[in-house]
């Protein structure tokens, strides 16, 4: 019993934040290495930017008009998102000129900001914690591609 309590105490000390990583999947030719994250339950999602076209985009890119997220699709994205390294976020996943951003509040009282792109990548910064780069391998629903 003492050993179990010591283990639990040690585990909680190692995983102090809401974005505790557990299982990771290796990279493939086209997909980055991804790790599971456990977010607190979401209370609300608000959208501050939608269907935004990057100033870095070239003329050949989409107009981004069809990349309009809803609070529901953002919740689905966050539910399926996995953490990736910042280097993979820049280098391995497809870059999209189309993005959306907003705020999120959790049932544990914490708040944060999120951003997502049309090609299923994103970022999440929860107050008081380091931000994470996200990728959702399974988010094949509109408006993601």
């Amino acid at each position, binding site marked *: 019993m003492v050993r179990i309590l010591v283990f639990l105490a040690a585990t909680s000390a190692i995983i102090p934040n809401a974005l505790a990583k557990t299982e990771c999947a290796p990279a*493939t030719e086209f997909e980055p*290495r991804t790790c599971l994250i456990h977010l607190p339950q979401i209370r609300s999602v608000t959208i501050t930017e939608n269907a935004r076209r*990057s100033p*870095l985009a070239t003329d050949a890119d989409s107009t981004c008009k069809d990349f309009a997220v809803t609070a529901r699709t953002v919740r689905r994205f966050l539910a399926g998102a996995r953490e990736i*390294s910042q280097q993979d976020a*820049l280098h391995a996943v497809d870059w999209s000129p189309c993005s959306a951003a907003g705020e999120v509040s959790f049932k544990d009282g914490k708040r944060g900001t999120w*951003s997502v792109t049309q090609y299923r990548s994103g*970022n999440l*910064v929860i107050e008081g914690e380091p*931000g994470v780069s996200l990728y959702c391998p399974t988010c094949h629903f509109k408006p993601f591609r």
Partner: protein
Amino acid sequence: MIISENGEIVDGRVLGRIQKSIERGQMSSIVGIVVHQTGSSSADSTFHSYANASANGAHFLIDKDGTIYQTASVYRKTAHVGRLKARCLAEHRCSPAEIKSLKAFNPAAEHAKEKKKTAPDRFPSNEDAIGIELVGEALPRGNHVPDHKKVYETVTPSQNEALQWLIRNLSQTLGISAQEVFRHPDISRKNHTEASTAQW
């Protein structure tokens, strides 16, 4: 430029640091060169990332001072390109049927269609392209700015000089056309600022 049977460059200007972790299968034909930036601040951080068993990388790495490392055999594939853009779209020569199918705007489907073509009808791919990485960060650092809004730093003059030397010698030795040397975002959906200041 002399290339050994193993695909290693034999030249005092190129330091051998082959990383078996990033080498994939045999590359039987070489049709192009793709220029990248690493997204990291130093050559050491890139070598550190290559230590991962499933790491992806390119054939060469050029440090900020112009030091050239060979990181994979030129006769082995590496996964440095990602999904291909439709070349006919970039060169304004798609058929009406291709334009119609590309309107779906799905990177995976677009790549699958391109993979059925042979170069130069498609862009060089992981199957037949040499990759050259230039050490360079995407700024600003940290997570307060989303990754998709970051801008790659300017390639140094020493890197550009080394890049010119390397591309010229690889092209001459391996018979690669000057028309088949690309910046990464020209051929795959990547941040448009990657390698935008590279010159060769």
